[in-house]
């Protein structure tokens, strides 16, 4: 089944739509997070993990991944249809984001056969939650400067140091870990190695971090003489930087290969327009204010530009001068737009813009919270400032800053 007809696709779309309507997990009775980075309570986590398992078992996740590892070996277009349906029905997201979108594609691309056998299926079923151990407190966006040490000792590596921004750190069974196996070498990158590290090991301690919203959702993970088996090493010692860069191309959406399924329940510009009809500014719906109207139109245009870029990027003839511009800038464009969208949403509310998560706040304060959480997009995975460098250097060919 490699070629598909329009008819097949339509039938599949109807099937999947029907299944999701029937199996909508419904209101959990508490405010859900918008992304995996915001999962702050056990109740939120369990609800979302159960939902991912159910979607996987129904066959709507990892559809294009090989059958021998738990996927369905179907053309990508079917997964895209299912993912699109989850988005348009505004269903909860698949919480094993690192597994589905980073670790899974990476293992499929570069992992050993035994890794694929061991990890892929449980990533899809959410049996094994994955987290990411790249950033460090002192290194920020400068991954090459990672100081966390991994020292070979017999059949183990002994890890010391700490990693920060490990989302789902307290729920994760595995971590994709970038650690320093050597301090010599030609440059700082040469000493880095990449591990598929178990988390449930003595000496690994993920401690929740309070976010600027006041909520939790990240960990700082401490390694204190933690011993992990030597065969957790991916590739060879010293290849860590290259493997991390491949991983980041998955994050930045520059290549396909992810398992599919929505990774967030993010608010979009239509939600802001809808809010502008309800939110009052000085006794009138905000949407009647000429200044607001102009801003809404600009954001709708920009948001639509992002959608259309995705459509255009699929047409090679229309991506000739700088073919990587669209894929390389996805995170930058999306995260900055979200930040401004949330700012506008807050500004629709008059004096109530100054409220925060509470019953009195408009929509329970979710817009203010989303604005604060939006910084995880503009900071995490390389700040917007660094994204500009990356696009300027790798796409336009400008010299390094």
């Amino acid at each position, binding site marked *: 089944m490699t070629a598909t007809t329009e008819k097949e696709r339509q039938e599949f779309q109807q099937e999947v739509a029907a299944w999701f309507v029937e199996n909508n997990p419904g209101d959990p009775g508490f405010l859900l997070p918008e992304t995996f980075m915001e999962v702050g309570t056990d109740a939120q986590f369990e609800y979302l993990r159960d939902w991912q398992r159910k979607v996987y078992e129904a066959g709507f996740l990892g559809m294009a991944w090989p059958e021998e590892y738990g996927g369905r070996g179907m053309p990508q277009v079917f997964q895209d249809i299912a993912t699109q349906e989850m988005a348009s029905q505004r269903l909860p997201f698949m919480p094993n984001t690192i597994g589905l979108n980073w670790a899974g594609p990476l293992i499929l691309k570069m992992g050993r056969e035994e890794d694929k056998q061991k990890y892929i299926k449980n990533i899809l079923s959410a049996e094994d939650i994955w987290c990411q151990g790249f950033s460090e407190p002192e290194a920020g966006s400068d991954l090459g400067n990672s100081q966390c040490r991994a020292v070979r000792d017999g059949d183990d590596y002994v890890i010391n140091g700490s990693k920060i921004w490990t989302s789902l750190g307290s729920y994760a069974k595995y971590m994709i870990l970038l650690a320093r196996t050597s301090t010599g070498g030609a440059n700082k990158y040469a000493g880095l190695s990449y591990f598929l590290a178990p988390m449930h090991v003595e000496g690994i301690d993920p401690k929740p971090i*309070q976010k600027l919203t006041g909520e939790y959702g990240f960990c700082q993970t401490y390694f204190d003489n933690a011993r992990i088996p030597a065969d957790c090493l991916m590739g060879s010692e010293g290849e860590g930087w290259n493997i991390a860069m491949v991983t980041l191309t998955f994050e930045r959406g520059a290549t396909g290969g992810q398992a599919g399924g929505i990774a967030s329940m993010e608010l979009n510009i239509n939600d802001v327009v809808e809010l502008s009809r309800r939110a009052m500014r000085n006794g009138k719906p905000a949407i009647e204010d000429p200044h607001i109207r102009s801003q809404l139109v600009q954001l709708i245009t920009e948001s639509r530009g992002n959608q259309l870029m995705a459509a255009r990027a699929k047409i090679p003839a229309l991506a000739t001068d700088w073919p990587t511009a669209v894929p390389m800038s996805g995170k930058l464009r999306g995260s900055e737009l979200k930040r401004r969208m949330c700012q506008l949403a807050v500004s629709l509310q008059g004096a*109530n813009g100054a409220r925060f998560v509470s019953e009195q706040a408009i929509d329970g304060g979710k817009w203010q919270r989303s604005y604060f959480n939006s910084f995880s997009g503009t*900071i995490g995975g390389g700040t*917007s*400032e660094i994204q500009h460098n990356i696009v300027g250097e790798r796409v336009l060919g400008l010299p390094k800053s």
Partner: protein
Amino acid sequence: MSSQITFSDEQTMLLDTATEFCRKHSPIETVRARLDADQIDATTWKEITDLGWLGINVPEEFGGLGLGLSCVVPVAESMGRYLMGTPYNGAITASECLATSGSREQKEEWLPKIVSGAIGAMALIETNGSWILDQIEAQAIASEDMFELSGTKCFVTDADAADFYIVSVNVEAKARLALVKREQIPEGNLHREIVIDETRRSYQLDLDGIMVPVDQLLEGSDFQAIEFASLLLLSAEITGGLVGSIHTIVEYLNTRRAFDKVIGSYQALKHPTVKILLDLEASRSHLYHAATVLADDNAGEAEIALRMAKAHGSAAFAFAGDRAVQFHGGFGFTYECDAQLYLRRALWCQYQFGDEAYHRQLLEPILLD
């Protein structure tokens, strides 16, 4: 339009004293320690009272210094700079409101008390979040020699600590101002609100069931005076907040390293920080100009100056707070980073008494037609 700024010896002295006082009393650890406080800091309030700062704007005949609101600005700016949380701005607005709308008797009764530390709180905004102060829904219905109040007020800051409230209510379809004493508020009518600026202690005040004697209705109803005082104090707080944000940003930019350089050397961080600095310089200029023309008693000029100050300051502080978080990178995303304190303060100030879009719209007919 005038473009004069005057700054008196009294203002200079007050700015020096207040800067030093707030620096000492409100280091960032104290600000953080007070985020969860369920009471105001009575000791500090006593000191503020003893310094005479509650009487700065109160006419001498009522026990104040008679220096006008322009001399309150340096104090409010300093408090803003150190993110100090006190009932000061509300109390000053209440005294200014009594001075402009109170009868002789009302002034004689209340202004001396305020100078001695009685806390007034303003109860003006309603659940719809409108900034138009004289278009409200709360009611005061006369029955014999009492008024029966109804409605709901929000964003009443430090209401739990207040000795009295100035409440806006419709009396026979016209917006008026009533003074409500603490003891006239039934048990359970005050509810703490969760607001974005955690240094604020904000309350909802249910008016239903409140009865006040008719002589607690203020004689006048000068809502413009309330708005002007509030805009001036907020602009001062904003200007101070901008100074604080810049120091916070610059300190981080000068210490944090990334890619083998101190991050302040990156133009992507340096240049927007310069923008914030220039925004501050403009905000501070608008502020002290507004203070100057307000003291000159020229309502037309004052309106322009105040709306400009608030519009420019709101946008500038919101930008500074937003960039402060962003420029702190991963650390900026944590509660532990002070950047969020400024961002939250900025949003509070932005949405109190009108954001930049609101004031610009009001400036349009004045400046263009």
